[in-house]
């Protein structure tokens, strides 16, 4: 459960979020969409208390995030699986160790780790890369490691910031199926994405942000005017380049 109550976050002069109120219920599957710089990652960062809101209150799993003491922040983050937009893999740890790390911080036994990590790596399809370091992986492989790490603790809330940005359509769909499956098991999922076709085809709740404000919040599609895009090919072929500008 994620609740934003009139939350504002400014970066000096930049608008991050502007009086945003949102309620995401337990078990929901929500897409967060919007143009570059709209405030999507700001939203995610606020949920994790990576940054503090200027105004308003934020609740995650019943915890009020803004008043959380430093001691309790790890608890918040552990109950939340996170796929960061920039992956944030530990460069000095192998794929296996990166995923295992998320389990180690919750003090799970070596046996549990040895059992569960390969399983999750298998789910995202990078078992054979278990012993590689992040800088030895393709972009999409790193992204899948990040997803595996977010999933490995069976979090009650999963937040994924652009988890398919570096993935080909096939792999993207496999990941989406995985997320759907996890969602069916009761996990709340908030996914930031630009993948219009995925959003359109999944038919889930879509929250659209623009310039820090929520401009749309409904079940359905990405809300991007297809016409213009479609018209592109014809236009170019016809040589009328300036039409797109």
């Amino acid at each position, binding site marked *: 459960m994620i609740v934003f109550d009139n939350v504002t976050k400014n970066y000096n002069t930049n608008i991050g979020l502007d009086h945003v109120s949102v309620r995401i219920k337990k078990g929901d599957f929500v897409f967060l969409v919007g143009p570059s710089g709209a405030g999507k990652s700001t939203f995610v960062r606020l949920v994790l208390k990576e940054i503090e809101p200027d105004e308003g209150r934020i609740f995650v799993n019943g915890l009020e995030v803004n008043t959380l003491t430093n001691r309790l922040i790890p608890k918040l*983050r552990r109950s939340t699986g*996170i796929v960061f937009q920039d992956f944030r893999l*530990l460069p*000095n740890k192998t794929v296996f160790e990166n995923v295992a*790390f998320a389990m*180690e*911080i919750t003090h799970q036994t070596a046996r549990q780790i040895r059992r569960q990590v390969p399983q999750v790596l298998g789910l995202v399809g990078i078992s054979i890369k278990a012993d590689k370091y992040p800088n030895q992986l393709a972009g999409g492989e790193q992204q899948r490691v990040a997803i595996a790490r977010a999933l490995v603790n069976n979090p009650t809330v999963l937040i994924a910031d652009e988890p398919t940005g570096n993935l080909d359509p096939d792999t993207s769909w496999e990941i989406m199926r995985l997320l759907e499956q996890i969602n069916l098991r009761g996990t709340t999922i908030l996914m930031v994405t630009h993948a219009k076709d995925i959003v359109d085809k999944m038919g889930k709740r879509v929250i659209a942000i623009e310039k820090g404000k929520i401009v749309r919040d409904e079940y359905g599609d990405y809300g991007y005017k297809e016409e213009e895009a479609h018209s592109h090919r014809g236009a170019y072929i016809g040589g009328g380049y300036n039409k797109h500008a």
Partner: protein
Amino acid sequence: MLNSLKYTIKEAFTQLFRNGAMTVASVFSITAMLLILGIFFLITVNIGLAVENVKDDFDTVSVYLLDETSYETAQTMMLQLEGMPEVENVHYLDKDTALAQWTAEKFADNADMFEGLAKNPLPNSIEIKVKDLASAENVAKVAETFDGIQKVGYYKDVADKLLRISEGLRTGMMIIMAFLVVISVVVVSNTIKLTVFARRKEIEIMKYVGATNWFIRGPFLTEGIIIGIFSAILSSGMLVFIYSRVVKSFSLHITWFMDTGMVPVSFMTFNLIWIFLALGISIGACGSIVSMRRFLDT
């Protein structure tokens, strides 16, 4: 708990190994600092010993007796002096022996030059060896109260000078030592700060994934301690090696420039290792904790 401890130690070693170049750089820096401290420590201890030895040469109080004072009176005085706690031993030096010693000292091989002397100008004396140069003055004062003495003499100037020198050396060395320790702490903690700095991204990532501060600190702290231990062993090993070589070459030329011996290697080894381990570990540990603070406190 046990799990965490195992994780922490394993993790620390793994990271030390994987960040090989950085580990080597910091072990070298810290070893270097400890070496400086150690050399200074060795010098200080040896100079201290040398000064003590030199002081021993001047810890004699001479009570010059009047010619009319009998040997028996002198014996009474000596008994009384021997009773004093500050006094090491007491002996009687008759004027003839004194003259012989003096001419031998002053005119070496031409000692016969004084043989024709009509009358020995020197007095009989009681030579008192005090336990500590600093108490010479006290003993002298007591001796002065005796009857039948001409004068009490001791190396007052030399004693004062020596006491001041040893005092001065002690404070000087203390100050420099303290200063060196401060500098070492600065250098070592900066070294560790830079290694932590090189890995700030990792620390942030760990935090964002939900690791508690102590979970993150653990391995870094352990790394700091291990680096400290390594450096301590390395530097005390090198120092003991160097020192034992120096002592050996000294014992060959034992009177090379001073007649005092050196502090024995075994004593030094023992002390160095413990001091270095304590220093290395505490600086290593504090260094990591302090340097991580700014990356952890959000």
